[in-house]
Structures are given as structure tokens and as C-alpha cells.
């Protein structure tokens, strides 16, 4: 318990609360209503504040700080435009269930509702994209509210929590007391799963002839990769990880089938569709993963679904054995049950593996090569090699994101950092910043596109100010590539506003910000350039690598929106 009998200002209390939560880094941007808070930050040195160049980036950085560690990310913004700029970041975190505490300044309590300068209804604007939010009207409630915010953000199904603090509350004084524990009667997330259900699941798994394990972001968020890997190896079943779940099971392992869904591998989608028992873990059967739910349901299979959030269960697909609980706890119990039963998986599973081998032989990730043009897939493969498959890779949204997900084989959780649910262009660069702060010294690569990177390009300046040496892999196709791909496939090549002329010279741009710039135009230069960028020579530099790639490269396999999962367009139709 932290207690101090001398009265302190709200601003001082807030900073003390953050210290009590062991917050070491916050990302923020000052303004009128948070000046008292900034003054308190100035007077201490336990919390490092990173001054970004746009509030959206502050929230993205805090978000990636959290994604790449197990900790709650923290961002601080001013009222009005500071808060509205932060909304995209908050929504991005919300859609991927990332635990954040966002603190926004507000006009003084006695001005609220009077259309004061830089007033906006922060609680109202963010309500649909936060797990919870608070407006603190009395300094006496402040410490308690911060405690609640951290607790809510990280427990249960995690998510962002906003604390809106009027300026006068940061000036008012009271005694500081930070509670050790908190009890919210209306909020009691479960931990343990129902043992009877877990037993049922164990039997079902042992009876399965065509089993499949499908895991999502929930496994990463709950730090259950170890349990998932143990279970998968114990059973010897095939496994797929969603875009949000990559790294939960080592991608270089034989049992790994690649990613499922819209741009999933042929074998993963075929196995998802044709399995007889599907074990879904911390995943939500979303439209990008299972395609058309009616088509998915036409193949009978028993589904076991483990998730912390009851509302994720039977939302889009009816399941047979729902298990609500914290994923690592449930998986531990499931492994125990399997060991207790002592059974072996059905012998028919060997046949299933043969079927899978047939699907794998399609080599659905094979891509067209060219002696003239740089293929984006090859850049990602080379990146994997050069970084020994052990980098943190952030990405933006588009074709480059899918190439990174498909070709960088993630063996560890929390290494692949991207916006899956909201699909927010612009996250890549601030994500790289957040990752580096959560993992000092780590190798961080941002795989981006020339359009996405421009949505938060101003952050190059922040990287300079704080000497954050990440490597940017710009897969420059001169197009809003993913948009162009859809226009090619569904709009008869009418490329309506998906081409950007007047791109900046990224090399010079990087240099203008004080960084190292490179332009790579020939396939044979890809390897050497990457090796140089990741060499000791540039250990302390941000290197911006502008790869001029084949603008016609498309992402395959592809399941069109609304289609069944096995209705895939494959690359070999286009080689």
C-alpha cells in the first residue's frame, strides 16, 4: 500500500499512481488541459515520457508496447483535438483487445457542457471503442479510478480504458492513497474453465479422426503459447494460427499449417473446412478467417471453443463444447485431463496427415519470380533469413502486411505486431517505436507500404529525437496495392484512385529527418542491402529501405469476401 498523509495535487497523484503501477514509459503530447500533469512529469525521472509528433502515434506506440510485452501501455493526450486524434489509436487497440490506459485532459469541471475551448465529450466519443471509460470529477476518486482502469484493462478479455481528467481536478489536492487491490462488484472475469466441459473436450479430441487446432490472438494475449505448444505436440495434430495468433506455435514446425482465412494457405483452409473436430482457442471465427459462415457450417464437425469472453462463443458459428475461461488455465487443465485419461489419438489421424500432405504439395505460397523485378515475398523471406527469424516485425495494412504474415515464419509469440481487427494503415512506424521501448536492444523491423507509411511518417522525427534504431522495409509498389488487387479482380482493372503519383523520394526524406536512407531497385541487391542495414554498422541507426517492387504482385491464396473457405484463388493460376 502506498500512502502519504500530506495533501497532493491531482497531477502529482496521477504520476504517483503510474509509478505504483510500475509504468516506465508513456507516450504523449501536451496541451492546455494536461499542463499540470506535464509539470509533475518534469519533476520526476522514474517514468520516461516519449514526445510523439501526433497523438494517434502515441496511442499506437503504447499499443505496441503492450503487444510486444505483457504490460499495459500508457498514453497521455490533451483535451479536444488531442483526444480526437487519439481515437483511431484507441479503436485499433480495442479491436485487437489490447490493454491500454489512455489519459486525456479535459476542460475544468465548471466548464464542462459549455462548449469551452478544446472541450469535447471524450467519454461519449470513445464509448464504443473502449472496454470502459471514466470521467474523474473529484480528485478524491482519482487514485481509485486509476487502479480500476489498470485492473479492467489487463484482466478478462483485455482492452483499452480511457481516463478523462478535467484540469481543475489535476490542481485540487487530497491525500494520496493507492489501493493494493480493487473489487468491482459488477466486474468479475472468470479464470478456470468448467471441468466437465474440459473432460468432454479431451474425449472428443482423442476420438477425432480429422482433428484441427485453430488458435487466435487470445493465446498471445493470455501468454498461453507454451501450453498451446505442449498440447499440440502431445496430440500430434495439425495447427493453424490466425493473423493475430502468429507465433503462438512455431511456424517452422512440421505440425504448423500456416495461416487460415482470406490469405491463408491452401492446406490450412482445407483442413479447417474438412476436419471432424476443431479445437478453437482464443479465436473468434471472424469473417476474414472462416469466410462465409453458412458455407463453413455445411461441413459437419464438432467444435470445441475455448475463450475468456462468453460473447465470442456461438456468435458467428455454433459450437458443441464451449469452455469459458482464461486460456492458459484451461489448456493446463485440458492437458491434465488428457494425461489422466492416458489415451492416444485415433490411428486414423495418420491418414489425415496424408491427406494434408497432398494439400501441402500444392505449395500455395509459391510465387512468381523475376530476374528484373524485386518480388515483395522474396524481400520478406530474405528479411527472415537476415534476422534469423528472431526479429520483432511490425506492419501496416495492405499487401505488404499479408506478405509479412505469410513469409516471415514467426516462432515466438508477441513478435508479429499488426492491426488485425481494425486494419489501421499508419500503425507500422509507431508500432516499431512501442516495441523498441518495451524491448530495449531488440531487433525491430517495420514492413510497410509507401501509402501506409505516409499516414504516420512524421514519427521519423520522434525516432531521431530519442535515437530509436529500427529498420523500415518499405515495399514500394506505387499503389494502394491491396485496393488495386481488389480492383483488378472484382472491378475489371478499373484502378480508381489506387495509384499515387508524386511519391516523395523516401531516401532523401529519411535523410532529411536525420536517418539513413537506401533505395533498392534490383533483385540481386535485396540480400546485401538487408545485411548491411541489420549489420553492426547501422546498429544505432534508423535505416529506411525503399524497395522498389513489382507493382503487379498480388497476394495469394485468396478467398474473396463472402465466399466459402475452400473457394480459393491460388497463385499457380497466375504464375
Amino acid at each position, binding site marked *: 500500500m502506498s500512502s502519504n498523509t500530506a495533501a497532493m495535487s491531482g497531477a502529482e497523484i496521477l504520476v504517483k499512481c503510474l509509478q505504483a503501477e510500475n509504468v516506465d514509459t508513456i507516450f504523449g503530447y501536451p496541451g492546455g488541459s494536461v499542463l499540470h500533469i506535464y509539470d509533475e512529469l518534469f519533476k520526476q525521472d522514474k517514468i520516461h515520457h516519449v514526445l510523439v509528433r501526433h497523438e494517434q502515434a502515441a496511442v499506437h506506440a503504447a499499443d505496441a508496447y503492450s503487444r510486444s510485452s505483457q504490460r499495459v501501455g500508457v498514453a497521455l493526450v490533451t483535451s479536444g483535438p488531442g483526444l480526437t486524434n487519439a481515437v483511431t489509436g484507441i479503436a485499433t487497440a480495442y479491436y485487437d483487445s489490447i490493454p491500454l490506459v489512455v489519459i486525456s485532459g479535459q476542460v475544468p469541471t465548471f466548464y464542462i457542457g459549455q462548449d469551452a475551448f478544446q472541450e469535447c465529450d471524450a467519454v461519449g466519443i470513445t464509448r*464504443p471503442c473502449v472496454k*470502459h471509460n471514466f470521467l474523474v470529477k473529484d480528485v478524491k476518486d482519482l487514485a481509485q479510478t486509476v487502479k480500476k482502469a489498470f485492473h479492467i484493462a489487463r484482466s478478462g478479455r483485455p482492452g483499452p480504458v480511457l481516463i478523462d481528467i478535467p484540469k481543475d481536478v489535476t490542481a485540487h489536492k487530497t491525500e494520496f492513497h493507492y489501493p493494493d487491490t480493487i473489487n468491482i462488484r459488477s466486474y468479475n472475469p472468470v479464470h478456470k474453465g468448467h471441468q466437465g466441459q474440459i473432460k468432454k473436450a479431451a474425449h472428443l479430441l482423442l476420438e477425432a479422426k480429422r482433428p484441427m487446432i485453430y488458435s487466435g490472438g487470445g493465446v498471445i494475449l493470455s501468454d498461453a503459447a507454451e501450453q498451446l505448444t505442449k498440447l499440440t505436440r502431445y496430440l500430434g495434430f495439425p495447427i493453424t494460427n490466425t493473423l493475430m495468433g502468429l507465433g503462438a506455435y512455431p511456424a517452422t514446425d512440421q505440425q504448423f499449417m500456416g495461416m487460415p482465412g482470406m490469405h491463408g494457405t491452401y492446406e490450412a483452409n482445407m483442413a479447417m473446412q474438412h476436419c471432424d473436430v476443431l479445437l478453437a482457442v482464443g479465436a473468434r471465427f471472424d469473417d476474414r478467417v472462416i469466410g462465409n459462415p453458412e458455407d463453413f457450417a455445411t461441413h459437419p464437425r464438432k467444435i470445441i471453443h475455448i475463450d475468456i469472453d*462468453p*460473447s465470442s462463443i456461438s456468435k458467428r458459428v455454433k459450437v458443441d463444447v464451449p469452455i469459458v475461461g482464461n486460456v492458459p488455465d484451461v489448456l493446463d487443465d485440458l492437458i491434465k485431463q488428457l494425461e489422466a485419461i492416458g489415451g492416444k489419438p485415433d490411428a486414423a489421424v495418420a491418414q489425415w496427415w496424408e491427406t494434408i500432405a497432398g494439400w501441402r504439395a500444392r505449395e500455395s505460397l509459391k510465387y512468381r519470380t523475376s530476374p528484373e523485378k524485386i518480388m515483395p515475398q522474396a524481400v520478406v523471406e530474405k528479411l527472415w533469413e537476415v534476422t534469423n527469424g528472431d526479429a520483432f516485425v511490425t506492419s501496416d495494412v495492405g499487401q505488404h502486411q499479408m506478405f509479412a504474415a505469410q513469409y516471415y515464419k514467426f516462432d515466438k509469440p508477441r513478435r508479429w505486431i499488426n492491426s488485425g481487427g481494425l486494419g489501421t494503415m499508419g500503425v507500422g512506424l509507431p508500432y516499431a517505436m512501442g516495441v523498441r521501448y518495451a524491448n530495449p536492444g531488440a531487433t525491430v523491423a517495420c514492413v510497410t507500404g509507401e501509402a501506409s507509411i505516409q499516414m504516420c511518417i512524421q514519427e521519423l522525427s520522434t525516432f531521431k529525437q530519442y535515437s530509436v534504431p529500427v529498420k523500415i522495409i518499405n515495399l514500394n509498389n506505387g499503389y494502394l496495392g491491396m485496393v488495386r488487387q481488389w480492383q483488378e479482380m472484382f472491378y475489371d482493372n478499373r484502378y480508381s484512385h489506387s495509384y499515387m503519383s508524386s511519391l516523395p523520394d523516401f531516401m532523401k526524406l529519411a535523410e532529411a529527418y536525420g536517418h539513413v536512407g537506401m533505395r533498392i531497385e534490383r533483385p540481386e541487391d535485396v540480400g546485401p542491402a538487408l545485411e548491411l542495414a541489420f549489420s553492426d554498422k547501422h546498429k544505432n541507426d534508423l535505416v529506411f529501405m525503399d524497395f522498389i517492387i513489382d507493382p503487379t504482385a498480388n497476394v495469394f491464396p485468396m478467398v474473396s469476401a463472402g465466399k466459402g473457405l475452400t473457394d480459393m484463388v491460388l497463385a499457380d493460376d497466375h504464375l
Partner: protein
Amino acid sequence: MRHIISILLENESGALSRVAGLFSARGYNIQSLTVAPTEDPSLSRMTLVTFGNDDVVEQITKQLNKLVDVVKVIDLSEAPHVERELLMIKVRATGKDREEMKRLADIFRGHIIDVTDSAYVIELTGTSNKLDSFIAAIDPVLILETVRSGVSGIGRGDRMLKV
């Protein structure tokens, strides 16, 4: 199918808009919604009438339970319960309609709670169906104004929604 959902929630500013926002964001129907503090002033009780098939209503209750301010949720219409709604209706009451309106109110066990030279305000409590029937029984040209409270409901016997 019509469902009556009862919700116990923290009596805090913003709690109501979280519930209302959830319904509009997810495209659920709200036919009526009433809310007031309970005997414990820290809690409000809300009764919400919605339409949807079982899957939709299951999602609605799960999503409501997910809101941090929501303490408890039950689907009242799943088991024996009583429900009531209050109607106040202002009708033209002149000439022979004056007697006729009084008679009709009596038949439905309503009360005239305000009288002027030209109008009555009649109060009527009952199920929504009963209120509908009463309104249907009145000549539409005589109806000046109506206001309904929305449904409140409570479980029968041992069935309770309490912390």
C-alpha cells in the same frame, strides 16, 4: 420473439448510454426501456423490451454482461413473471363524449386523474396488450395525446434479481 430483459446496473452517469449505445451499435431493437434507482440508491434497475430470435437474445445478454457497469442481467420472459406498463392518455371530453370516456375508463379500470372543461387525462396500468386495446377502443379523433412508461417487470415467487 419478444423478450423482457431486466438489468441491474451501477447508478452512475453514463451507464444508461452504455446500454443504449450497445443496442444501436450492434443493431439490436429496443421497443421500450425504463430505468430508475432501486431501494439501494447505488443501483439502477432497467427493464428493456426487445425482439429477436434466441441467438440474438443470447448475444444481447452476453454483451450486456460484458459492460463493466452492468451488475446482473436476466431474461425475465424466460420464466414466470409479471409485467406492467403505465399509460396516460389525454382525450377530448365534451358533450356526450364526456360520459362515454368515463364509462370506457371504468371498463378498463383506468382512472381519470385530470379534468378540464374539454379534456380528461386517464391513467391506466396493465400489460402492454391491455393498453393497446384501450387505445384501440377510443375513437382516434378524440385522442389528444398519449404517453407510456414502457414495460417494467419482475419475476414471480422466488425468482429475484438482486446483488
